[in-house]
Each structure stands twice: as structure tokens, then as C-alpha cells.
């Protein structure tokens, strides 16, 4: 039995990467905002927040990479060229795989950009 089904015939996989991006965004921004509003609540330094953001970022990038790999596989590893616009089931699956792959790429870059401030900002107030 396979853990990951060979063919994912649902539109939901298309949104996986952007959803991971959104969750990562919320985690970073809400986490940092709560910490900076009430630093005493947690009893840890701001560096712990930065490490937390780093961990969330690696988890998010990992999840997006898995989504990208699945999409690449669904797209047939690039054996067919776009635009995949024939009214067939095969083209529909290829199109979805290709679109998912592009969205994964976008989400990957966006997650890195969201996390970048944590690399340079060392205190809540500056």
C-alpha cells in the first residue's frame, strides 16, 4: 500500500503550497507580535523567537518541496509541454500538476521573503 497515492485526482492539492505559505506567514507575524507585546509571558529572549521562525520556515519549505515534487510527478516530470489545453482527463491532470508546480515555486520564494526580516532584526523595537 502506498502512503502517497500515485494519482491525486482532486483540485485540493493545487492549494497546498499557498496554504503552507499563509500558515507560515500567520505563524511568524502573530508569533512575533504577541511576543513583542507581552515579552514576559514566555520567559524567553527574542533569539528564541528568531529560532522559532527559522524552524517554522524549514518546516514550511519542506512541506512546499514535497508538494512541488508531487506536482512535478503529476506533470510527468516535464515530459509534455504546456499548454495542456485538450479537453481530456490526461491534459487536465497535466495542467493541474504544472499549475501546482508553479504555485509551489511562488510559495517557496514567498516563505523565504517572509522569514528574511528575522535574519536581520535582532530586537522587538528595531
Amino acid at each position, binding site marked *: 500500500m502506498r502512503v502517497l497515492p500515485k494519482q491525486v485526482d482532486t483540485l485540493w492539492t493545487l492549494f497546498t503550497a499557498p496554504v503552507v505559505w499563509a500558515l507560515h506567514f500567520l505563524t511568524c507575524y502573530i508569533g512575533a507580535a504577541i511576543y513583542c507585546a507581552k515579552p514576559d509571558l514566555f520567559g524567553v529572549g527574542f533569539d528564541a523567537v528568531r529560532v522559532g521562525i527559522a524552524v517554522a520556515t524549514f518546516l514550511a519549505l519542506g512541506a512546499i518541496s514535497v508538494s512541488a515534487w508531487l506536482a512535478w510527478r503529476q506533470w510527468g516530470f516535464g515530459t509534455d*509541454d504546456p499548454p495542456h489545453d485538450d479537453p481530456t482527463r490526461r491534459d487536465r491532470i497535466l495542467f493541474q500538476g504544472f499549475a501546482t508546480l508553479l504555485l509551489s515555486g511562488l510559495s517557496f*520564494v514567498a516563505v523565504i*521573503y517572509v522569514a528574511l526580516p528575522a535574519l*536581520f*532584526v535582532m530586537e522587538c523595537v528595531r
Partner: protein
Amino acid sequence: MDPAGEEAHQVLQLSVVLFCGAAAIWLGVVAALLYTARRRRKSLSEQSASRFILFGGAVLPSVTLAALLSYSLWLMPGLRPFGQAASAVLHVEVTGKQYWWHVVYRRSNGPVVVSANEIRLPVGQRVELTLASSDVIHSFWIPALGGKMDMIPGRTNRLSLLANKAGTFRGPCAEFCGTSHALMAFAVVTMEAQAFQEWLGTQARPSPRAADDGAALFLRHGCGACHAVAGIDARGTIGPDLSHLGSRLTLGAGSLPNTADAIARFITEPERIKPGVQMPSFAMLPQDDIRNIAAWLKDLE
């Protein structure tokens, strides 16, 4: 483009780098455009065209943007040096009001100095500014010294500035705040540390001319209900403190030159000079009284 402070210098540096980065990208795009429109066209193979789109259209912009973003984020802690603000010897509280600036200087070793519509700062000493507003959102900006910071009712924002050149500059209100928003400005004078201390010393004492004849007229006509003048019984806080009005560079928050005639005009028709101003017209006072009050205010140095 001629920074006189540490923060303004960094803002200029950031602008130059981002401008050059944008110019390089623009040149790249134009070069690609010319390449596609070249005369002797030979089409690319489908594979190299795809590769060109992938690298030129996705990878290169992402990497360039990441580099520019990293550079601006790297500058950010330096632009907001609040950590060092705690060690600042001088704290200046500025409150934005429609349409003027209330300024209070607090030192660890000296009395509090109240002023308005003019800010003086020592060269080479970090100063912490506490910014607030008592009515609507204003924005405090001294372009020659640093970036702008909003003044939000109910909130206290902090700004830290380090001037490194002596001079006279202008600061505008950078957030639309009402009819006379464009007439809400202040003069900024950066002075050598010694001269600044002396200036602050004179500001902490009432003006030597405070008790002159004009003071009686000023009090009799009720000006003291809104304006404070050190040394006489005028303690109003609704309008700007006038204790050393004569030594300020401008009148009416940067809207008029500071002369006795302009002061008389402001007393007579404030609404025409600054639409929406809270001060009512005092045109009904005898002309001689207005002139005497104006001359006395101009003498308050």
C-alpha cells in the same frame, strides 16, 4: 540629498542603492526588448526559450529582489536605534496639534524648557524624541536628519536622531491633518553642543523683557488664557508657548517670517493666515494695543 544627520545619511544610502538596482533592472529589461526586436532574427529553440523565460523571468528577479530586500532589512536596525535612546542625555517631547508643534526639552541635569514650532538639537549627541498628538494624526519629519514618524493620538512613538552638521533646516507635517496641514511646519536648528547648552540655559529663564509694558496689555486682553509666557501670569496651554517668541525663526508654525508686523497681522486675522486655526481674530482690539503687544512679543528673546 544633503544629509545632516546619521539617520538621513543611511536613508540616502538606501535610496541610492535601490535606485541603482532599479536602474540596472530597467536596463536589463530594455536590453531584452531590443534583443527581441533585433533586425536579423533567428528564433530560439523551444527548449532554450523556456530556459530563458525561467531564468530571466523568474530566477533572476527573485534573486535580485532577495538581494535588495536583504540590503534594506540589514540597514533597518541602524535606522531605528532605540536601544541607544535610553542613554540619550536629552529627551525632547513633541506634540502635534492642529496646526502647530508643542515642544518640551527634558534634561537629567536642568529645568524643563517649553517651546513651540522650533526644535534645536545639539550636534554629535543622540537625542530621543517622544512623539504624540492631541487631536488627529500628524507626522513628524526632519528630512535633513532622518526618516519620518507618525504622531498618533493615544500613542507615544519614539524617534532617535543624531545630527552631525550644524545648520538650519525645515521640518514639515508629513500626514494630512486638516485645512492648514501645508502651513504646519517647524524650524530645526542644529547647534554645536556648547552653544546648544547656552541656548537651553537662556530658554530656561524668562525673557529679560517679559515684564515690559506689553505684558499688561497681553494679560488685560486675555491672551494668557491660551498662551503661556514665562515670567508673567500667563499660563494657558491651548496655544503655543510664547516665552521666547522673538528669537524663533518663523511665526505661526512656519507660515510667516518672524517680525513685529507679522505678529500684529496674526493677532488681527489668524483665520486668513492659517485657515482652520483655533485662535479667533482679535481685530476688535485697539490698533495701538495690537501693535504694542506685537512689539513686546518680538522683544521676547
